[in-house]
């Protein structure tokens, strides 16, 4: 859906999305990386299970909710990536204790 401009010279960072290695750049947010990954990163909602992707990318819509390093329902558009970060796509309601 999105692709990187060649002028981007920021250092590479690797994160994992549902266990699969995904290339990122330092300073990217989790949501930006997901949208640029080319993978199916749709979450499903806690209400009806409908598929969603990030909508606003500025912290207001909560459609970017994602599990980051084992913590559920984080706003992926506000969290910068870090080397080795484990991201999981959420399906439905968050599990308690995660």
């Amino acid at each position, binding site marked *: 859906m999105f692709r990187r401009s060649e002028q981007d010279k920021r250092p590479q960072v690797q994160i994992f999305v549902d266990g699969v290695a995904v290339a990122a750049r330092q300073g990217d947010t989790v949501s930006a990386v997901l949208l640029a990954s080319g993978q199916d990163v749709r979450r499903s909602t*806690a*209400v009806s299970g409908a598929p969603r992707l990030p909508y606003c990318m500025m912290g207001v819509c909560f459609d970017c909710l994602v599990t980051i390093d084992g*913590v*559920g*329902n984080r706003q992926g558009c506000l969290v910068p990536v870090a080397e080795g970060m484990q991201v999981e796509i959420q399906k*439905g*309601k*968050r*599990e*308690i*204790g*995660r």
Partner: protein
Amino acid sequence: MSREYDVAVVGGGLLGSAIAWGLGRLGKSVAVLDEGDITKRASRANFALVWVQSKGLGMPAYTVWTVQASQAWGRLASELKQQTGLDVALQQNGGFHLTLGEDEFGQRTELVKRMHNQTGAADYKMEMLPASEVKKSLPLIGSEVSGGSYCPLDGHVNSLRTFRAFHTGFREFGIDYFPEQPVSAISKSGGEFRLTTPKGELRAAKIVLAAGNANQTLAPMVGLHAPMGPTRGQIVVTERTMPFLPHPLTTIRQTDEGTVMIGDSKEDELDDRALKHSISAVMTDRAQRMFPHLARLNVVRSWAGIRVMPHDGFPIYDQSETHPGAFVACCHSGVTLASNHAFEIARMVAQGALEPELVGAFSASRFGGAGTANNSGY
């Protein structure tokens, strides 16, 4: 607006709505007069328990009344479902009051003992359980939980959906709902009541005052008395999570939607716009000590509500001597007692008289002059 109704119900919250719905169910022509969008509405702020344990210390009749309501709730839920298609998610598989540490366990044990000594016939099987027993029903409890009381009659419901179901049912029963029409004056002439609202006068053969704490000012207009002592309660709610809590607790419940509600304080404050985070902190701290898994959930909202609270904590149901046909109803437990309001109170209002053997104990005459301290056991 000058139609005549069999009954005008003043107040469209859960209590007024239940009575109005019950009257409509009996074929009465009913008008419900309500406030607008911004109002101190306990029906939107409540904790949604259908709760029996510990109710009625100091007034056995209240225990009996509560047990009856709990038992009639299933019928109410199924009638609402049948009429409106709305499932109010009634769950009555027993509820807990958990204690943290030995002191709290001891205090709760004392309370259970006192309740047993008092209730007699209406024994509702409230019992103390050690933590090891509690854990069988609530496997995720934390190590600080010392045990708790359990009552098999306890449960909870989706109270907002119940509210919506009553209002949806109004249409089916031909009940006229008039929001944005608070009542400022009531008089009786020519055998009927005249209620003054901002949009004109409404006439009805009978009236039921179900306006929450506002009953305090409305009741004297028709020779009734409703001494209230409202308090503020705060509630915190989390995001939706997978089901983890199979039973409701006095202060924690998981809704059918998946959110976790955490209550509830009792404060001598009547401003429902302001919140005290330090109080929410006590509530959430206790909640995470009871269920450590809760710690990582996100709190999405919190709110304060003003309890409708008769002065001694017990309901008031009364009828006017000076203005026959005028009734007053107010109580704190508008969710728990909704079934009684829909079936019993509505039936008695339709008949024209409250039955002393059923609700005589709840007459405001019990207050005499000065009110007594709140000891509802709530």
